[in-house]
């Protein structure tokens, strides 16, 4: 298996098998990616893949789970609970060295058994829920993501967990507090998915530095 090897794995959660995408040697130290939620996931998939490839080149193995009800999952989103997503974050990779969470994915990283957490532009559950409602209002004739009322209620109440070793990076244009601000476009807002190799490179090097500081690699 080459360092940039691409593969797929399965993890079992709530009686169904879900998929994980892997980039890197499966024997290498594991990094669990927690993707943005709902529409933002599609817009950042290329960015995540770029970052995963860069970290694989540094001797890490990156894993990106399909949360139940998303991606290739056979479950319907409206039947999935918020707790099932927390459980999926916990169960998809056994004791990863670090988590890399983007946007709403950061609402799941405190469920994971790890000691090193890295976040890009994290958002509160309430902000994700409002965005979802707004996108639903704007998209005439429905479409988009339709999670259950129970999921939306739990999501709205979800806050970013606090842990000893969490590093938060935001874009320079974001006014909220962060450990570091980096230049780059908010790809998660673009209706046409795009990528930024500059943002991927600065994100990957920051993750690597943070993992070294944590003693995770």
């Amino acid at each position, binding site marked *: 298996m080459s360092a940039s090897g691409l593969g797929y794995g399965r993890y079992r959660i709530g009686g169904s098998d879900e998929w994980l995408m892997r980039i890197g040697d499966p024997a290498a130290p594991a990094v669990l990616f927690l993707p943005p939620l709902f*529409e933002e996931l599609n817009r950042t998939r290329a960015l995540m893949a770029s970052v995963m490839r860069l970290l694989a080149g540094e001797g890490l193995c990156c894993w990106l789970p399909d949360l139940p009800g998303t991606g290739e999952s056979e479950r319907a989103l409206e039947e999935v609970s918020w707790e099932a997503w927390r459980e999926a974050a916990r169960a998809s990779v056994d004791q990863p060295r670090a988590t890399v969470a983007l946007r709403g994915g950061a609402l799941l990283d405190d469920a994971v058994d790890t000691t090193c957490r890295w976040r890009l532009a994290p958002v509160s559950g309430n*902000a994700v829920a*409002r*965005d979802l*409602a*707004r*996108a639903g*209002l*704007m*998209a*005439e004739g429905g479409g988009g993501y339709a999670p259950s009322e129970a999921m939306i209620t739990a999501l709205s109440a979800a806050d970013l967990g606090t842990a000893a070793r969490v590093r938060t990076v935001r874009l320079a*244009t*974001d*006014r*909220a*507090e962060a450990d570091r601000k980096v230049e780059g*476009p*908010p790809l998660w*807002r*673009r*209706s*046409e998915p*795009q990528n930024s190799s500059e943002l991927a490179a600065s994100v990957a090097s920051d993750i690597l530095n943070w993992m070294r500081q944590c003693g995770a690699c």
Partner: protein
Amino acid sequence: MTAALNDEQEVDATLRAVLRDVLGLSEDRVAALNEASPLFGALPEFDSMAVAGLLTELEERLGILIEDHEVDADLLETYGSLLTFARAKALQ
């Protein structure tokens, strides 16, 4: 969490940056916008999904909250109407 904005120029610059980043417009196109420039329905990039992203990104960068009942076609008609709204929200 965030300091209040107190400068009309800063709101203008923020709004242009959000249009550039959310719609993927070039610097030249964004710089050429004036108060009479039509937005929604005039820019092909500005579809209904983009409206949601634009409003949420404006909230994040200006430190404001936009209620759904405040959003209508008039608000998004021109650059000037959106700028007036953003200034009223951010500088109150």
